[in-house]
Structure formats: structure tokens, C-alpha cells
């Protein structure tokens, strides 16, 4: 009795443990959702006043405020230090001149030359040493509280992508220098925002093998899908004689090799091919098959073969024929 109970409990435990570790839906980790990029649609007319994105405005205002604080705390010491240095050196020079004057009585020209030399020495051109100094100063002048504020800010903008946020904060500070709400700079704002989107896209494109295991397994990313679509668009010669108002959707299931070449293609509604009165469907299906043949190897992602080794392409010419 006890023996069977013991065996049963071990068996059940084993099943539960195995289920937890092997079934993907239990093991699946929460998704790392990328941040949303807000886009405002603007209708362009002869004279278009592009409204400022309210969300971006809020974020930039916050950044501006924080940077104002940073700048206000950073700026004075820089100036003060430099001014002090200048003043001190000038005073020292004056003293030296007085000393020299007391010793000798030089001509006014020589005096000027001396003064010039001294001034040049006192106010040096920006060189490497100074650059290093300024960097050090900036580091020093970022108190821990301000750093914390910045970090909080980053969390507000993009909670889980610190690299992208860095660029945003940097971008905002650049705008701040050039006066954010100057209408002449809106174009620059738009351009920069494009760059940002581009960067995020690039980051999405680069999927490591480890990420690949945890990501959503049922779809291609937008960029992967776009690359594939763009390739097939180029290969698919649409039969222009087809009527646009008929139900002419051709679904083709593909089995692909890791390099994107075709192993097998199958028309899912194959029965329609040989039905009477379905001549248009047959023509469309054949054109779709030709497009696949012509396009191969297909531009599939370099990783995650298991994801896309079976692919379904839905060819729908209505949009093209209806126009």
C-alpha cells in the first residue's frame, strides 16, 4: 500500500516537474515589449502648421528643466574659474609689469608686447588639457541627486531600453541649446525623430540566438516581413486581365531550407485550380507560384529557422487590380 502510494507520488512529482521545464507555455517568460513610438498623422496642405507632438513636448520640457538645473550648476563654476584665472593672471602680470617698470623704464611698445605675451599665456587656446579638464569638471559637477533625476527621467521615457533613452535625453538637450520651440527647428526635430525610429528598428533587427528563443514564435518581425514582401512584390507579375471584384485570394504553403530556397510549395485551395469557371483563380495561382520560384532563395531571417521553415503566403491582387 505504502509502496504504491510512494511510487505514485514520485511519478506525479516527476510529471509536474517535467511539465514545468519542458512545456513552452509554462516556461515562457513575460514579453519584453518594446516602447511605443508615437506618430501623429498630419495632412499636408499648401500651408501646413505642423503641430508639436504633445507627448514629446512634455518629455522635452522635463528634460529641458533638468538640463537647466544641470547647466545652471555647471556653467557658473566654469566661467568663474576661467575668469578668476584670467583676472589673477592679469593682476599678476600687472604686478610683474610694475616690478619691471620700477626696475627699468621700457618704451610703451615693449610694454604692449609684454602685455600681449602675458595675455596669450594667461588665456590659452582650447587644447587637449583643457578638454580633459572640462570633462572632469562635468563629471564632478554631476551630483548624485542629479544623476538620480536623470535616471528617473530615463525610466519615464523608456523604462526598459536605457541605450535608446540616452540618445533621447541627448537629443533633447541638443534641442534645448537651439531653443526648442523655434518653428525653424521643427524640421530638425522631425529628422531626429526619424533617426530615433531607425535606431530602434535596427535594434529590433539584431536578434541574438538567446533572444530568439524567448521571443514571440508565431510571427516575423515587421522588418523581416517587409523584406520578404518587398522581394516578392518585385517577382510577382500580376495578370492584369483578372477581374478585381472576384474572390481571388491564393494561399500557398511553403517549406523552406535554412537559406530560403524552396523545398516544397502547396496551393491550399488546390481543388479550385481544376474547377470549371475558375480559370482566373488558376491564372493567379500560377503567377504566384512563378513569383516564388523566381524569388528564391527568399529573404528570410538569418536566425530562427524553426519559426519560418513553414511559411504561408497569401497572394491577393485585388488592391492592384482595383486601382
Amino acid at each position, binding site marked *: 500500500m505504502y509502496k504504491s502510494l510512494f*511510487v505514485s507520488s514520485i*511519478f506525479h512529482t*516527476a*510529471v509536474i516537474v*517535467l*511539465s514545468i521545464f*519542458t*512545456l*513552452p507555455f509554462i516556461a515562457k517568460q513575460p514579453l519584453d515589449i518594446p516602447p511605443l513610438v508615437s506618430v501623429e498623422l498630419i495632412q499636408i496642405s499648401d500651408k501646413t502648421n505642423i503641430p508639436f507632438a504633445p507627448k514629446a513636448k512634455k518629455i522635452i520640457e522635463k528634460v529641458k528643466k533638468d538640463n537647466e538645473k544641470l547647466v545652471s550648476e555647471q556653467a557658473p563654476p566654469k566661467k568663474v574659474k576661467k575668469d578668476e584665472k584670467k583676472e589673477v593672471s592679469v593682476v599678476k602680470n600687472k604686478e610683474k609689469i610694475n616690478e619691471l617698470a620700477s626696475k627699468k623704464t621700457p618704451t610703451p611698445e615693449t610694454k604692449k608686447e609684454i602685455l600681449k605675451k602675458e595675455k596669450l599665456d594667461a588665456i590659452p587656446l582650447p587644447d587637449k588639457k583643457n578638454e580633459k579638464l572640462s570633462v572632469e569638471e562635468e563629471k564632478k559637477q554631476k551630483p548624485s541627486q542629479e544623476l538620480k533625476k536623470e535616471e528617473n527621467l530615463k525610466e519615464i521615457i523608456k523604462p526598459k531600453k536605457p541605450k535608446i533613452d540616452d540618445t533621447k535625453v541627448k537629443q533633447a538637450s541638443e534641442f534645448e541649446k537651439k531653443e526648442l520651440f523655434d518653428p525653424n527647428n521643427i524640421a530638425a526635430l522631425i529628422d531626429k525623430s526619424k533617426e530615433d525610429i531607425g535606431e530602434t528598428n535596427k535594434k529590433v533587427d539584431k536578434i541574438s540566438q538567446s533572444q530568439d528563443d524567448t521571443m514571440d*514564435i*508565431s*510571427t*516575423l518581425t515587421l522588418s523581416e*516581413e517587409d523584406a*520578404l*514582401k518587398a522581394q*516578392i*512584390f*518585385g*517577382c*510577382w*507579375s*500580376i*495578370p*492584369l*486581365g*483578372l477581374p478585381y471584384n472576384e474572390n481571388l485570394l491564393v494561399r500557398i*504553403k511553403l517549406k523552406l531550407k535554412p537559406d530560403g530556397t524552396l523545398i516544397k510549395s502547396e496551393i491550399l485551395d488546390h481543388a479550385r485550380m481544376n474547377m470549371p469557371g475558375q*480559370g*482566373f483563380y*488558376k*491564372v*493567379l495561382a*500560377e*503567377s*504566384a*507560384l*512563378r*513569383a516564388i*520560384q*523566381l524569388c528564391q532563395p527568399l529573404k528570410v531571417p538569418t536566425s530562427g529557422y*524553426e*519559426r*519560418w521553415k*513553414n*511559411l*504561408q*503566403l*497569401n*497572394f*491577393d*491582387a*485585388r*488592391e*492592384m487590380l482595383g486601382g
Partner: protein
Amino acid sequence: MKRFKLILYSFFILFFTISKSYSLIEVDITRGNLNPLPIAVSPLFQDKVSKIFFEKEINIDDLGSEISKVIENNLKQSGLFNPLSKDAFLQKPDIAHLKPRFEDWSLIKSQALITGKVTAVNEKLKVEFRLWDVLAGREMLALAFTTVPSNWRRVGHIITDKVYERLTGEKGYFDTRIIYVSEEGPKTQRIKKLAIMDQDGFNTKYLTLGNELVLTPRFNPTNQMVTYLSYFRNLPRVYLLDIETGIQEVVGDFPGMTFAPRFSPDGKKIIMSFAKDGNSDIYTMDIENRIVERITNHPSIDTSPSYSPDGKFITFNSDRSGYQQIYVMNSDGSNVKRISFGKGLYGTPVWSPRGDLIAFTKLHKGKFYIGVMRVDGKGERLLTENYYQEAPSWAPNGRVLIFYRETKSNDKGEGFSAKLWSIDLTGYNERMVETETDASDPSWSSLLSN
């Protein structure tokens, strides 16, 4: 105990071999390209005996090659195909017709291939051809025709129709003819003759001598009959002409002016407009019993009637709103509706054989346009613009329009010309149709091989 172990092991194996399940990824392809399809038309092979026979019979050295040129030219003119240069072909016609090496044909970027064979059988011309899908590596179509050797150009047109239908999904328009008014001489003294030719401009024949003025020839959609208007002793007469037999008959003398006769879709009636006491209205006439029926009764000028392919509706143009616009009504004249509301004047409406569109001529700001609109007047698209152009006529598949275009003459009347042009519904494939003389008022026949 052993059984228990077995079950336990099987569970272990089951769980460890379970791999991740992936749902099928779907990608929607909603766009493609409209580039012409690259197609290779291999010269049709002919043996030595046939070659000698055809050389003697119709004085053509390489008939197979000539037929392939007809096919190639037709496909190119359609704008939907790009026939590849024969210089690039790697395989000989005879072997290609038996079993093409698809690698060779795909190497020159061909997606489809036409091969064929020409033989003389019982003093007749036998042409067999095959259409191949190069990328799929399989045959798509195979047919053979037998006819008299002089009909070799028609065989080329019929093959093109079959290829066109197989690859585009709609019927072709190559085995057709165009009737038009041939024009010669200075602008003030034009000699106008009725002429007919193949759709590619070959085999021109003149049907009248040019003594009388001829206008508006129109094909019967069901056979090779033509109706046209001719002036006899300065009175307009509507004629019927059988192109096959050459028999011509007068349909009737009509008081006043008569315009634009056109057949009904069943070919049993002629619809036209008569001008009576300064008022022009639309009438139909039964060809068999010659009964004339009035369709419109309005003080305005109603002209250019054209039936819908099902015969239930008629489109025409009228100035009843103050300006010349296009209207649609039931075939009995009831329920008249204006369908054109754009700027400018609209005329010569012609219902598409497919029934979905109405082609028209539009005059706006001194320019003439050929355009199409849906039968409810929506979706107006202007396909081509010029100094002077009018009289569109549909190809039997409803995809291509033929019309004529005149050039501007100087004060002395020099520099004037009238030529036929064709344009497809995309508006991109616009071509001049070669004619022996100047030409106007074209009308496209239905398919001859129907």
C-alpha cells in the same frame, strides 16, 4: 513493475522529445509588379519537305519563323509581355518543341516559352504549338490547327489569343479586324473610303471606291456584318455590308440627318439618331422587318447611342442639361439618368463589351481626352490627351481602346494627318496603329475564331 517502468520511461521520452510548437506564419502579398512578362517565342520548326512546299505555295522561305514573328509582335503590342530577343536563345527550335531545357530558358530570364512545329499535311498548313511554364518546368497548353496555307497570319493571331488567355486569364483580341475610314488627299478635298485590316495593320482591303462620303462604320458584334453611313446624292443612307460575301444593302433612306448607326448586342437591331426639324432623337430599327421605333423624345440633341452588352440599357450623349453630357437609360427609353458630371463636354459614349465601363471623348479647355468611367458615372479616368482625338471603340475583351487622332494643319491646310491609335485601360500602353493611308472612325470586330 515492469509495466510501470515502461510507462515511466515512455513518459520521460515523450516529454524530452517534445519540441516547441510553432504556429504557421502568414504573410500577405498585396502588391506585385506590372512589368511585362518576359516570354521566349522560339521559331516554329519546319522540316525540309514542308519548307519546299510552303515556299512554292505562298512564297515564304521560313514560315515557322514568320508565324513566330506574328506571335511575338502581337504579344509586344499588348504591353503585357516582353518577348525576348531570339539571339539569346540557346536551344534549337526542334529540340525545344520536344523537350525544352528549362535551365537554358530561365537563364535568359524567360518565364514562359512558346515552341511549335509547322508541317504540310494534304496541301494544308498544320501548326502545332506548346506553351511552357519555364520556372515550374511544365507544359501549360498544347494545341494544333489546320488551315489553308494563305491563312498563316491568322494562325499566328489565334495562337497569340490562346497564349494570352492562358497567361492573363482573359480572352485575347488578336484574331480580330478593324474597319475604318481611309482618308487621302488635302484636308479640304478628302477622299474617304471604307477599309478593313487585321488588328495588327496587315491585310488591308478597301471596301468602297471613294466616290461617296462614308462615315461611322460599325461591326456587328455577332458576325462579320458592318453598318455604315454613306451619302448618296447628298442624302444620308444607312448601309449593311457583309464582309465575307461582299453583299451590300441599303437599310433605309431617312429624312433629315442620320448619325452614328450601331448594332444592338444581339445584332438584330440598329440604333442611331435622326435629326428631324432641328431636333435629334434616338431611334432603333429592326433589321429583319425594318420597323423603326423612337426611343427618346426630347427637344434637346440626343446622339451617339450605344447598347450595354446585355441589351438592357443604352448610353448616349445629350445637351438637355445645357451642355453635352453622357446619359444612361433603359433600352425602352425610360429612366434617363445623367452620369457625367465633370468639367467640360462629354461625347461618343461606348459601352464596354465586359459591361463594366463606358468609354468617352471629353473636350475640356481646348483639349480632347479619351477616358473611361464606370456605368454609374463614378471612377472617371482620362487615359490620353491630345489636340484632337475621338471615336473610341473597344477591343472584344474590353481591355484596349482604338480611336483616331488628328494633327493640327497650318493655314494652307498642310501638315494635317489622321491616324489610328490604341491604348489599354492602364493608360500606359499607347501605340499608333500602322495604316496604309490616313485613317479615322475605327471600329473593332469581335473575335473571328468564335
